[in-house]
Each structure stands twice: as C-alpha cells, then as structure tokens.
C-alpha cells in the first residue's frame, strides 16, 4: 500500500549551509506522525520543503506515490496536502468567517469565480458554518482575524488548514505558546479534525506528542536519528542523549 507521504533522501542547502541532510521518511495513510527535535534541527525547513514553499536541493517528496517536490505550493495544496504555520499566518484584515470561507472555496470546486456572489454559494456557507462550530469560534464570526486572542487565532490557523478537506495535514507547532487548558482543547480539536486523515505534526510539548502520535521521528541537525513508536523512542538512548535529556517524560 502506498504511503500517504514519502520523503526520499531529501536534502536542502542554503548557500553553503546544509540544513536538511538526507531525510528518509514514510508516513502511512491515517497515521499520526510527530516530528520532534531540538531547536534549529530543521523542522520548519522540512515542512517548507514538503509543502512547496521552496524546492529541495536534492531528493524527492511523494504524495501518495506522486512526486510533489518542486511543484508550486498551490499545486501541492490542490493535490490534498495542507499545512499550518508556527507563526500564525491568517488573513488578518478579514473576518474569521471570511478566512474560513476562502479556505473552502477550492475544495468545493470554485475557482476564480467572479460571476456569483460568495454568500449565495450554499455549499460554501454550509461548510464554513460547520467549521466555525467545530472550532468553537462562532462568537468571533465577524471579528477581523487580526484582533482575535492568541488561542483563537491558533484555532483559526488550524481551521484554515483543514478547511479544504486535505488528506494529508501538516501542523507546525500548533500548541506553541498555549496554557495547559488551551493545549488540551487544541489537542482535542486536532484529534477530531484529523480523524481518518494523515497527520504530520511538529511539536515541542512532549505531553502532546506522546499522547497524540502513533509514530515519532526525531530530527537532529537535518537528519532523522530515530523513528518508531512512542515506546521505542522513549527508550532509545541516542534520543535521550540528543534531546530528551532535560525532560522527564
């Protein structure tokens, strides 16, 4: 069975600096896969490579067996891969509702339509309302996204990412900067929205990682040093030494 996402000998250099040094990874369909690693390991760069923000220097990224590396980001997104951002990356001057509405358009078949009113597109409004409820953001429906509280913005961030119904979802530190309660809510949301989908998540919060992930990979200096189930990772001495040393899990 083809893996949902395959990274084959992926490398990326910026000038003389080699950030990603040959990453091989396979994420099975429906799997929840966490990528952890110390700061500067290249996790965000990895996400950027997979989602098409820039092309790799070498190697390939395959989505359900089809090559996506080198394609522009919007093309990759249309093929069913969506990502969130570590630093909240929403449409700050538009209302929450508008943010979600724009995010559902392509997946419902609407292209650069200018001959119909957006509010008349029943399937669009239905899906947007659905998402609003799912994210518990009904009370902020008409608020400009830039004025939301941090936690609400992060929820919207996730919302925009999953709105299009992508099969493979990349979440980049979704709970960064959240309190315990907010983190719990976020994890609950993530679990709900990624049911039957493939999830690749970068996280620093070990509680979230071990609670959510089916498999974990550890990225250190641009290479994967270990990959396996949470138990395997927890017990791996290399990983402990490189990364988990300070944290008692």
């Amino acid at each position, binding site marked *: 069975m083809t893996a949902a996402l395959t990274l084959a000998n992926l490398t990326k250099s910026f000038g003389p600096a080699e950030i990603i040094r040959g990453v091989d990874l396979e994420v099975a369909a429906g799997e929840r896969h966490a990528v952890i690693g110390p700061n500067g390991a290249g996790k965000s760069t990895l996400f950027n490579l997979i989602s098409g923000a820039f092309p790799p220097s070498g190697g390939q990224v395959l989505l359900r067996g089809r090559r996506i590396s080198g394609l522009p980001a*919007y093309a990759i*997104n249309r093929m069913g891969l969506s990502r969130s951002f570590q630093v909240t990356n929403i449409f*700050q001057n538009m209302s929450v509702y508008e943010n979600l509405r724009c995010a559902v358009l392509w997946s419902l078949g609407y292209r650069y339509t200018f001959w119909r009113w957006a509010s008349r597109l029943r399937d669009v409004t239905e899906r947007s309302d659905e998402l609003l409820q799912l994210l518990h953001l009904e009370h902020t429906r008409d608020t400009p996204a830039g004025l939301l509280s941090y936690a609400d913005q992060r929820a919207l961030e996730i919302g925009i990412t999953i*709105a299009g119904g992508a099969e493979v979802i990349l979440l980049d530190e979704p709970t960064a900067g959240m309190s315990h309660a907010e983190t719990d809510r976020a994890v609950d949301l993530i679990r709900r929205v990624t049911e039957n989908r493939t999830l690749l998540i970068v996280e620093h919060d070990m509680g979230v990682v071990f609670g959510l992930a089916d498999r974990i990979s550890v990225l250190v200096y641009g290479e994967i040093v270990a990959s396996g189930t949470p138990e395997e990772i927890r017990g791996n001495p290399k990983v402990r030494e490189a990364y988990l040393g300070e944290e008692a899990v």
Partner: protein
Amino acid sequence: MMQPGFLRSLLPWLAAILLLALLPSIFPSRTAFSVMNAIGIQLVFALSYNMLLGQGGMLSFGHAVYFGLGGYGAMHAMRLIEAGSLDFPVFGLPLIGFAVGLIAGAVIGWPSCRRSGVPFAMISLGIGELVAAAGFMFVSIFGGEEGISGDRMVGVETFGLSLGPIKEVYWFIAFWAFVAALAMWAFTKTPLGRLSNAVRDNDQRAQFIGFDPQRVRYLVFIISGGFAGLAGGMSAVNYEILTPETFSALVSGAVLIMAFIGGIRTFYGPILGAALIVVMQSLLSDYTEAWQFYIGILFMVIVMFAPGGLAGLVERVRLAIQRRELAEVAPTWGLGVSAALAMTLGMIILVELVFRWREGSEPMELLGIPLSHSEILPWLLALLLLGLGSVGLRQAPKRWGRLLRGEAP
C-alpha cells in the same frame, strides 16, 4: 431567498438613486453640473483604482494608462459613429471604454502582475511612462499635442437624450457612475473579490489554500483596467476631447491621492475622495493658488495619522454611535477637532501670507478682515493658531490617536 442583510445592504444604493435624481434640482447651475459630471467620472476611476490598492494590495503608479486607452477607444468609436460607419449609441460608449480597458489590462497586466509590492509599483511606473511617451509619438491614434476630439451629439439617441445640454450629460454620467459602482461593489462580494482580499493580506497563505496569487492579481488587474477604461469612456463623451496628457503620471498620481484620502479600507472611501478633490480643485482654485499644496498636506496627514482616510473617520464615528459611547468620547473629539481646525486655519493663513509676500500681490481677506503680509500681526496670528492647535492636539493624544486609527477605545 432574500436575507434581511441583503436588503439592508441595498439601502445605500436606493438612497444613492434618490440623491442622483434630486441633485439637479438642488444644484441647477452650469458650474454645478460641470463639477458633478467630473465627480461622476473620477469616482468610477477611483473605485477602479481601489480594486487594486485597497482590495488587492497592489500599489500602481500607472493606472492612467487604462483610463486613457479606454477613453481613446471610446473617442475613436464616437468619430466612427459620426462618420456613419458605426451603428452604436453614444450613450453606450463607456462599454467600449470598458472593453478596451479590459484588453489593455490583460495585455499589459500579464508581465506586470508577475511581481507584487514595490516591484509591481515600479513596473507600473515604468509602463506608465512608456505609454505616456508613446502617446505623443503615435499621432494618428492619439492626436499628438492637440489630441483627438469628437461630437457627442451624433448617432442614435438613447432614453430621449441628445446629450447636447450639460444637464443631459449629467444623466448619462449619473447612470454609468451608478452602474459601474454597483458592479464594482458586487465584485467585492464574489469569491474572486474575497480572494483578492486574502492575497492582499497574506499572499503566501493564499497559496496554501489552493490559489495562485499571481492569477488572482492578474484577474483583478484586468477587471480594474476595464472599469478604468469605462471611466475614460465617460470622460470622452463628457469633454469631447482626449489628449495624450491623459496617460501622464499626474493623472495616475491624482487617482492615487483621491482613493487614499477618501479611504482605501472601505468600499465607498474613494467616492468621498473623488468628490472632495474635484470640489477642492474647482472651487478652491478661485480663491487660492495653493490648493494643490493643501491637498498634499491632507494626503500626508492621512498617511501618517489616519491611514483609513476620511471613510475611516466616518466609520469610527459610526462605531461610536453604534456602541452608544458618543456622549463619552464627544468632549475629547470636540477638543481634538477644534485643535485641528485651529492648526488648519493657522497653516492656511501662513501659506497664503507666504505666497502673497513672494508674489507681492494684494493682501488677503479672511471673513472680511484684511490680513496684510507686510504687517507682523497676521504672521503672529498664524503662528499663534498653529501653536494653540498643536497644544490642543497634544492634550487629547491617546483618544485622538485611537479615533484616527479607527481602533476600539
């Protein structure tokens, strides 16, 4: 199925129709019609410009190109109608302008829209200069320095309008201004309109929801060019002459100033801006030579202190009324407004004094009081007003700042 929100949003448009119908009775003079026609043309142009700037986040220094090309298209069509080789009503010429603007936008927009932000602005400047120069070179199309002229009283009459007297031209302008504004407003509510907002706010994220930002920008550019061309067509009929000056950076700069002063963050802002600038141009130029300077100052004040423009201020007041906090903020606002007025008056007096001192012309009269530039008193008065004004503005800084930024208190 009509929703209540839809009916409510229709209300301003119905009010607009009423206003357009009543205006000729309120202001029946020739000058008034001339001004109102100019406003009608400029508001369509400014709205088309704001499709790029306010809604799409694209700063263009060369929008006059599409206005001019549309205008020339309409003008040539008008001459063909006059010659009998084209069977098309003059009343419909703005549509020809629209078509020419669309095509021009498509052709020129293709290389332009590959970039955004500052490079886009620079490309638009370069192309504007190119077309402006080409305008003077190709005499058979653009008429050289004298331009091309035509006669609007030819061909088939529509709606019983011969388009001879200026009042009849008013109805023509009012019709097209309304139709164009309505169309552009409707556009903002379409998916593409929304997407252009998204691309403006975050073009990287727009990619990650499946849309090519370049494509969005290009389509918006084309449509915006179309409406600019429509305004050009209106202008061709109204003034019956078009010269290559239409392509100049001055015209491009003027529409930028209009849209920005009016307020680029709301739909109707550019309408306010167009009206204000046209009025200032026609009325103030009789009283002072420095009216362009005042416009410049107004523009700078808005850029620095009220980037939402006049419409932003209006919205802020509306917000206060909605939240029933008018009584609470009124004293601070009152202080701020009077301080601003004092500063404005002081500045005007100072500017006029300087001007008259240099020109050696007769002393000015303010409300019947002569203020001579050769005496020290008026200068002191000006400085005093400026000083008082700035003190007043410093007294209510926080709330004043919030008012102008359109933020919540």
